[in-house]
């Protein structure tokens, strides 16, 4: 039996809803086919956007959506994507293998999609191949409420009212595909570009600087030292690769326990990365004004056999559910610094919540995890831990924690949501949770929802879309603030204590 405690008197902070954000790039079939099918498509759509995908995403209450990249952002010229469709130029998206981009999904279409699913837009601007003027004009086009060339152009294109735009990224991966810059150079470039990302009227923009890749603490150090006061957020990108080898990352569905273990071990590294970068950020920003924005994370495998390698299409198993659950628990735990995260990517690319094929759509195990965790959004993080020896999952002489957990109290009531992952694919975990705190009301019951797989590679297909889905296991009694439960092997569990 593992003893967990939840201390309701001690809250390290509020879990920003934006931790449950997503990312959509012009890559493979994410935008084209996954979101946008065009107004003339036989697939039911609203203004060219798939109804089935929009409806499913709306249920997740996605708080924020990043677009248009990724690497694509630093090659995207936004003016190509406005105005009559027939006049929009076609371009070659060289960042993603020479794809022809016809620009039919541009600023208006993205903002419409955000409206449909209820998400805040997070636009990533072009630093690598764009100008300061171009970036300034894009913000003016979207947000300026008055007479100006850009607001007039927006009106000509059918939108009189400005949009609200809260989040803006100044470049993407500028240490790599976004210009191959050194941090010393990018810090100055960031300061210059960010100066012209202006607040018009009541619109206030949260400016996000390109942050480090994985463990590059030098980048964080330089950016925080040279540009801290000019930014609101600093990004971090870290992908989970089973083999650790970029040229043969491992299969999404054909793997053994060794790769199950290495995947979960590698994803747990997110905790260490956040701690390392946060320590540097604390040095320059002890008040934690600047947020760490993990705006690309998730699994990255070899593409599905028979699919185009440039499309980055991969399946999604119960292993991905564990990766999602573990990372979201980590982000919750560091909510004092991590205030946005965007899993890569929304549809049909990398660790997607939705896969499509023609008119068909399937929800992945990762979708269900986001659904099970969504009530953490804006919740009060509760100090949660294990008393005594924490159980471990060992394989081949190596050990990792067997349980990942976080808990929060609802902002609207005193209900507590506890989300737990059992990383062990063979053994269940018996747990006892003690809710501690002064002036506690009597908790009486906990509802239990479990996502588990029949095999380590269990997944949903277009022919069997409900192979992996959450099951509601009924109510668990709570007596004197204590409840007991059993975590199934390789499972994600959500307990809602009432």
């Amino acid at each position: 039996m593992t003893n967990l405690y939840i201390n309701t008197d001690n809250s390290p902070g509020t879990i920003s809803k934006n931790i449950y954000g997503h990312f959509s790039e012009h890559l493979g079939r994410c935008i084209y086919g996954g979101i946008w099918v065009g107004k003339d498509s036989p697939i039911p759509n609203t203004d060219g956007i798939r109804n089935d995908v929009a409806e499913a995403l709306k249920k997740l209450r996605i708080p924020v959506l990043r677009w248009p990249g990724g690497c694509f952002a630093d090659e995207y010229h936004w003016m190509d994507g406005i105005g009559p469709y027939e006049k929009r130029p076609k371009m070659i998206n060289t960042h993603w293998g020479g794809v022809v981009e016809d620009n039919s999904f541009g600023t208006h279409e993205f903002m419409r999609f955000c409206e449909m699913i209820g998400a805040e837009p997070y636009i990533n601007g072009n630093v690598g191949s764009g100008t300061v003027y171009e970036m300034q004009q894009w913000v003016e086009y979207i947000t300026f409420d008055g007479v100006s060339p850009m607001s007039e152009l927006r009106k000509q294109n059918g939108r009189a009212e400005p949009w609200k735009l809260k989040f803006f990224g100044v470049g993407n991966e500028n240490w790599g595909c976004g210009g191959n810059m050194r941090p010393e150079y990018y810090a100055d470039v960031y300061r210059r570009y960010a100066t012209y990302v202006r607040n018009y009227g009541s619109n206030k923009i949260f400016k996000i600087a390109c942050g480090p890749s994985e463990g590059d603490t030098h980048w964080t150090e330089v950016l925080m030292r040279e540009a801290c006061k000019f930014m609101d957020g600093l990004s971090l990108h870290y992908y989970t690769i089973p083999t650790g080898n970029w040229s043969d990352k491992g299969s999404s569905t054909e793997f053994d326990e060794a790769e199950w273990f290495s995947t979960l071990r590698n994803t747990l590294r997110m905790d260490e990365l956040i701690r390392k970068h946060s320590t540097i950020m604390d040095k320059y920003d002890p008040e934690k004004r600047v947020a760490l924005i993990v705006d690309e994370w998730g699994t990255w495998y070899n593409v599905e056999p028979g699919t185009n390698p440039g499309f980055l299409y991969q399946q999604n198993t119960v292993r991905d559910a564990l990766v999602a659950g573990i990372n979201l628990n980590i982000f919750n735990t560091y909510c004092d610094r991590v205030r946005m995260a965007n899993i890569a990517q929304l549809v049909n690319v990398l660790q997607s919540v939705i896969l499509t094929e023609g008119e068909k759509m399937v929800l992945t195990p990762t979708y269900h995890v986001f659904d099970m965790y969504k009530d953490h959004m804006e919740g009060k993080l509760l100090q949660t831990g294990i008393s005594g020896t924490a159980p471990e999952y060992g394989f081949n002489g190596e050990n990792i924690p067997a349980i990942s957990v976080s808990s929060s109290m609802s902002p609207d009531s005193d209900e507590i949501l506890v989300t737990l992952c059992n990383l062990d694919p063979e053994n269940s975990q018996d747990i006892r949770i003690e809710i501690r705190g002064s002036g506690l009301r009597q908790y009486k019951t906990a509802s239990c929802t479990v996502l588990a797989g029949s095999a380590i590679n269990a997944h949903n297909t277009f022919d069997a879309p409900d192979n992996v889905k959450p099951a509601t296991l009924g109510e668990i009694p709570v007596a004197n603030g204590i409840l007991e439960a059993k975590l199934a092997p390789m499972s994600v569990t959500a307990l809602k204590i009432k």
Partner: protein
Amino acid sequence: MNEPLCKGCSASVRLSPEEIKKLFGETLRIKDIKVVSEEEYHKRLAHCKTCASLQYGTTCAHCGCIVEIRAKLAAFHCPYPFDPKW
């Protein structure tokens, strides 16, 4: 310290016949995979090669599959929305 990885350079959508042949071999090595007859294969491919949804001469826009591979697999069908061609 190693140079950071640039993920954008990971793969191209444009494939040579040699690359397709290699991918074909890798797909057919999947255990228990069933393939269609040569006659059925060429019938299927003929539809794909004239389809408006074929991208880069190799890839179906509706599923992202390389049509020369998908058409060979018995369990698969044409993903054209509401109007499969095979």
